[in-house]
């Protein structure tokens, strides 16, 4: 069982028992009011800092199902992947959370996850990173599926029919929390891609997105927005998105992508970005194997 699953089951038990939380995984006192509703069913509104309430709808996220559709790591590798994502997220988050909201680039809390060519594993990385950040004590995460043409994340969450990003961008009258979804995983919100629109790049490049981002930041200062964007060299949407976002996480697939393509993609991004890279699907080498086995050893002891 994964940590997430354990946490969920404990909460369930607590909720059922009505006892104060006494779990091995301690939940620290949040600085911000944590949404009270822990229920797995949709419906309950939550209290947001600005008092507006938060997302109205909620979707269920079944880890087992995610595992079965290969959206997250299989059980035997779970510990390893989790550790790897921890190593990735902390350097990423530190500068993010230290920044003041108004920085010229949206709100400064956004991270765009992209790659040079398709099939490099962006979606996998974005999802797992989001799950990892969701466990952070000091912040929460909004996962946005910005790949309008191929909304893989939306499909993973089975939210194809719901309104999404494009709707928000087109219809200015829509309220954020009408479209953003809460998930059964604490700390994780999800914004689907929305209906497919041929003018998606223009929509993404428009000021409306910036406004949205600033709104979110204003309503929820501790929320990190993670954008799953299309590949840089495949479409212009990533470039369009990049107009507003300063932090870029470049996903590079090991033993596959040519360095020349990566260079081209980076050039397409433009100036003034904080770009970091990660190597996805890296082969088992010396550092990997040592690292993985230690935690596996630890796990075995616990169970």
């Amino acid at each position: 069982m994964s940590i997430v699953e354990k946490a969920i089951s404990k909460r369930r038990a607590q909720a059922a028992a009505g006892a104060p939380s006494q779990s091995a995984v301690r939940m620290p006192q949040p600085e911000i009011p944590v949404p009270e509703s822990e229920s797995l069913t949709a419906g309950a509104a939550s209290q947001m800092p600005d008092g507006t309430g938060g997302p109205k709808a909620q979707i269920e996220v079944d880890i087992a199902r995610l595992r079965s559709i290969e959206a997250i790591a299989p059980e035997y590798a779970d510990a390893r992947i989790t550790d790897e994502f921890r190593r990735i997220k902390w350097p990423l988050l530190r500068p993010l959370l230290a920044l003041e909201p108004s920085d010229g680039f949206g709100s400064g809390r956004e991270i765009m996850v992209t790659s040079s060519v398709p099939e490099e594993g962006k979606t996998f990385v974005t999802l797992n990173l989001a799950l990892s950040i969701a466990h952070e004590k000091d912040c929460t995460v909004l996962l946005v599926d910005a790949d309008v043409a191929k909304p893989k994340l939306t499909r993973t969450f089975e939210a194809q029919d719901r309104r999404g990003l494009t709707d928000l961008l087109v219809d200015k009258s829509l309220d954020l929390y009408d479209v953003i979804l809460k998930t059964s995983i604490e700390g994780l919100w999800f914004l689907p891609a929305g209906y497919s629109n041929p003018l998606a790049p223009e929509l993404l490049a428009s000021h409306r997105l910036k406004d949205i981002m600033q709104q979110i930041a204003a309503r929820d200062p501790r929320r990190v927005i993670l954008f799953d964007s299309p590949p840089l060299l495949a479409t212009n949407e990533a470039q369009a998105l990049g107009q507003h976002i300063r932090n870029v996480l470049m996903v590079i697939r090991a033993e596959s992508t040519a360095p020349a393509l990566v260079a081209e993609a980076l050039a397409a991004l433009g100036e003034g970005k904080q770009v970091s890279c990660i190597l996805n699907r890296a082969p088992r080498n010396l550092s990997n194997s040592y690292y993985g086995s230690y935690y596996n050893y630890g796990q075995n002891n616990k169970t």
Partner: protein
Amino acid sequence: MGKQIVELLDQLRGLWRFHWHAVATAWIIAIMGFSIVYLMPDSYQAKAKVYVDTESVLRPLLQGIAVQRDVTTQMNMMSSMLLSRPTLERVIHETGLDVRAQNIRDQEKLIEDLKTKIDLESSGHSNTFTITYKDKDPELARNVVQTLLDVFMEDTVGIKRTDAGMASKFLQEQIKEYEKRLVEAEDRLAEFKKRNVGLMPGQSGDYYTRLQNLITSVENLRSRYNVLDGRRAEIRKQLSGEAPTFGGEKGMPSPIDEQLVQSRARLDQLLVQYTDKHPEVVALREQIARLEKDKAEGRNKPSGPVVMTTTTSDGRTVPMVNVNPVYQNLRLTLSQTDAEMAEVRTQMNDQERQIAELRSKVNTIPDVEAQLAQLNRDYEVNKTQHAARLQRLESARISGEADESADQTKFKVVEPPVKPKLPVGPKRPLMLAAVLAVALGGACGVAFLLDQLRPCFTSTEALKKAINLPVLGSVSDVRYGAPLRWWRKSAPMVMWSMGLLVCVFVASVIAVQRLSPAVRALLGLGVA
């Protein structure tokens, strides 16, 4: 060091992407290569050894007399001559190789092949020369070597003979030329002599001596002429002034008188030419003395008048009443004197003319002498040259004969070429191993090439090196589903595949050794 190993491993991981390409390449090359090696025809080698005897007995004898031929250079010349076009054409014709060629281009190619395939080795020390040739037909190999051997022996003798022949031809030409010159010189000399016949120094002494002799001779002739002239006048006087009759005391001259007059006249004549010591003069003086003595002793009796007719010079017939023997004698003497005078005059004129001529040539005679000297010298020179060349021709002929007769460079065939029974090649196991090496090498090469064409990142280290951006880490590649069976895993499969390849190689080696003739017979290739 560790870092380099890590880098190397990263690189190998990059190559590993194409492991199936590599395996396929290895198998393809191996199969093709093994087949080729297997199907190659056997090659047979025919070899002949020739011993060249340069330690000849004749060499010290002929040193300095005849022209020597250096055998080593001869050998080098030989090997380049042996592989020359005409020789090879002869070989392919005589061995029947030319049936393999259908057109001119094929024939050219055949000759080129032959040139490279014929192997000539000479080991300098033992003076052995080896000719080898490999072919898939053993009979043909032997024929080629045999033909080459024959050509070799023929031509080495031929070289010498041609050389000597050429030398002698040259000499003969030279000799002819000099003969011609000699003849010309002789002709010139002869002609010169003919042209200047009177002026040749040898004929009558020096020029001046000749001149002097002529002058003296002319003087003598002149004096004689004068004497004759005087006598003639005298006789005329006697003839004309005198009465035809001689009588009286004087009357008809007596025989003694007549004889006396005759003798005296004769004496005078002689004295012009000869000295007193001349026998004739002496005899005549004695006769005169006797006659005078007789006359003094009065034995002189005149004879009676005789009347005879005689024809005078102008045709009149006069009675020779007045003719007496003395008169006749006188007249005879007169005509004799006339004749003599004419003779002397002619001689004189002739000699005077000669003198004039000589005098006129006073300038040219020395020139002529000089020219003559030069012509003589030319002639001498030509003669010596001619003689020298004759000498050399003689010498060359001796050397040629010596070569031929003694056969200075001896050739002995140590090992004649035989039809080889067992093939000498190709070395199949070796070639099979080479094919295997090439296959493996090719496999690695293909992998390497593809890696170069399609580069990638294999580790965060590589990424960090290549990109100037922070690399936050890596996400492991995880495999979903149950763990793979061993036959599905790449690495073991590749190893098994290679192992199989090696087994095939070993099997091929064994097969090549044992089954080769049978299989080849089955496939209808070549001669067993």
